[in-house]
């Protein structure tokens, strides 16, 4: 189906923010995905932070939910209606600080949910505090001595937790559109990190260090190679940042493991349609 995705709501992102690219890539990918079906069958979930404003800028059903709780909300929507396509969005605070436990379990459950983390390595909406992926030494008003605690490597966490699709891209419209298409084709939990900058609080250019795994002949079916590639960038300092699909291997999805949900899927209905 065709659907007007613009909401006409005036954006409050800073002029030139990387988030505009993400939104453009997302709209393109969603428009393509909607064409495949005659139903408005995509739901989006956003957390709290700058990223979450995209909920107001795209005309989609779903929920702009609590900080850190995007993934259980996505799983709940899938459980309520396994026929919906569900995309969750988080920032790095949302995904790696407040909601890290859900991230690990979401990878383990492998529901057919697409999850996009817009990682600018800083809390921007609360004006510049460090997140779990902030560089060592980063200074702000809440940490005047600079960040002393080592950053997490979410790609490694996702690989270790059993995510069936693990990718990282830059905030480039074409790349985002491409990776979302790949994620939609993948049956299972897809983790996509968009490594971007914040023009105000973390204005660093990582793009020039990035190289595409797909051009290097990386074997995305091999966990060992994926782990090695994940270790090339530790979110602190580096010469090279691999982007593209680190790992992809389908396995049985959450919705197919439970008879009740499988039945709903097979009949193309949700619990809402069951009158008792």
């Amino acid at each position, binding site marked *: 189906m065709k659907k007007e995705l613009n*909401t006409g*709501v005036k954006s409050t992102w800073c002029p030139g923010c990387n988030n505009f690219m993400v939104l453009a890539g997302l709209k393109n990918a969603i428009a393509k995905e909607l064409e495949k079906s005659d139903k408005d069958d995509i*739901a989006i*979930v956003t957390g*709290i932070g700058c990223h979450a*404003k995209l*909920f*107001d800028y795209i005309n*989609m*059903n*779903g*929920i*702009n*939910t*609590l900080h850190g*709780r995007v*993934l*259980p*909300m*996505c*799983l*709940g*929507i*899938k*459980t*309520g*209606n396994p026929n*919906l396509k569900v995309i969750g969005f988080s920032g790095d605070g949302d995904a790696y600080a407040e909601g890290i*436990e*859900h991230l690990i*379990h979401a990878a383990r459950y492998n529901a057919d949910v697409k999850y996009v983390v817009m990682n600018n390595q800083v809390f921007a909406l609360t004006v510049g505090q460090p997140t779990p992926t902030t560089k060592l030494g980063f200074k702000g008003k809440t940490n005047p001595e600079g960040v002393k605690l080592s950053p997490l490597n979410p790609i490694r966490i996702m690989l270790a937790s059993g995510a069936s699709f693990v990718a990282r891209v830059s905030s480039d419209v074409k790349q985002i559109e491409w990776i979302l298409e790949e994620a939609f084709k993948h049956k299972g939990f897809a983790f996509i990190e968009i490594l971007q900058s914040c023009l105000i609080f973390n204005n660093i250019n990582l793009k020039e260090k990035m190289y595409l795994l797909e051009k290097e002949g990386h074997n995305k079916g091999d966990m060992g190679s994926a782990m090695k590639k994940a270790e090339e960038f530790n979110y602190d300092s580096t010469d090279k940042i691999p982007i593209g699909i680190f790992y992809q291997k389908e396995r049985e999805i959450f919705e197919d493991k*439970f*008879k*009740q*949900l499988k*039945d709903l899927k097979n009949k193309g209905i*949700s*619990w*809402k349609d*069951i*009158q*008792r």
Partner: protein
Amino acid sequence: MKINILIKGQAGKGPNILAKIIGNVFTKWGYYIFISRDYGSFIRGGTNSNQITISDKLIMSNENKTDVLVSLEKNEDNLFIGKKVIEKEGEENMYFAGRLAKLFGIDFEFLEEELKKLGHFEDNLANAKKGYDDEEIKFKLEKRNIFLKLLNGAETSAEGAIKSGLDTYFAYPMTPATSLMIELAAKQYEKNFFVLELENEIAVVNAALGAAITGAKSMIGTSGGGFDLMTEALSMSGVAEIPIVVYLASRPGPGTGVATYTSQGDMDIARHFGHGEFPRVLTAPGDPTESEEVMGQAFYLSQKYKIPFLILTDKHLAESLYSCEKDAVVIKSQKNITLGRYNSYESDEKGVATENPEIIKKNIENRLRKKENIAWECENFEMFKIHGKKDSKNAVIFWGSTKGAVLDAISELDVKGIQIIYLEPFSSKIADELKKMNKIIVIENNATSPLSALIAEKTGIMIKDKILRYDGWPFFSDELRKEIENKIGGNS
């Protein structure tokens, strides 16, 4: 007539199954039964006990005395308990079922019928027969033709939720809420709904809200500590207007508290959970039949008004077995939710976050109006009940699982019992009821008497007389009766 039997034995040796089997045998024999369980936080090794009270009239509590002690182990303390002691080393639990059945002159066939519902029938039958032959009839009970069911609050809550059209139930294990999850998990295939255990209570409540926005009738269950973790999301259900039913089975806190004992210490968090101002309903059923009926009201009101609806219970009601006389009336409800744009922010009619003062004010006023409408509609339900001597000038007022002990305690006293079922909203008629009284006593299973504070807040009436128990145990009717008599001072 009342007979109190105490069954104790090491966890793992099956004292609980023994109590349930013997309870069902007495039920089929035509007697009212009440069984409460006392167990610690252990799986094997510690001593579990089951207190069974048997009567020819309706009872819903135990007395603090033992007429017959059944001990699965020999213990020198046993000599000091009860008029009759049945103890034997090295026998299986159903041996004792046989002895108990014989002691009360119950036909063996009644026990045999119950044993057919368990596994290992041949072994159990042989053990029971041996016990039956080893004992003599001492307290002969005549067979009576009364049809009763022996049920606990968790079983009827599950039944109520299923009859109300439950679609999805999410929980993280926590005593004493897990007994409901076990009931639902066992029935989910036959009745076609879905039970899911997630990584923690925060995931549980958020996933339940996710299912709810797709239109599913969604419910969660937990105890105090887990509930504390859920309250942020429940606050969101207030602003985003998402229906959710919450089964809160409380236990003594604070902290991990006393995990396997009972308490009514959570009324305040259940009334005041979540930041911000938004409508909610809080109910506290007092017995298994009410637990089932309230469940229907929970789904009806939460769907209609898109609000969180809490059912506050505790270990005593969830896990004690009651003789149930009548079938519960569970009202039907529609599914009222369609997937649209929901928001944890204050939002406009398109689901877009807003900071516009006019919209903020309008949204808040809409929620306040909803609160008034809910209060008005709740008056259609039994928000409170009057028990005991209805024209008495003495009243005891109580809520939740104390109902059983209170009703048994006042059955022969000049006392009216006022049972509050809806704690939020609070019926406007209760004040009139209280004003008619000369003497009012609040009875609660807690230390700070939140019911007194609630009554003061809602009616302006300050009640000084209180009977409070806060040692992790429920009230016993004989002790409670004496305390009530002392408070009303010779009036009865």
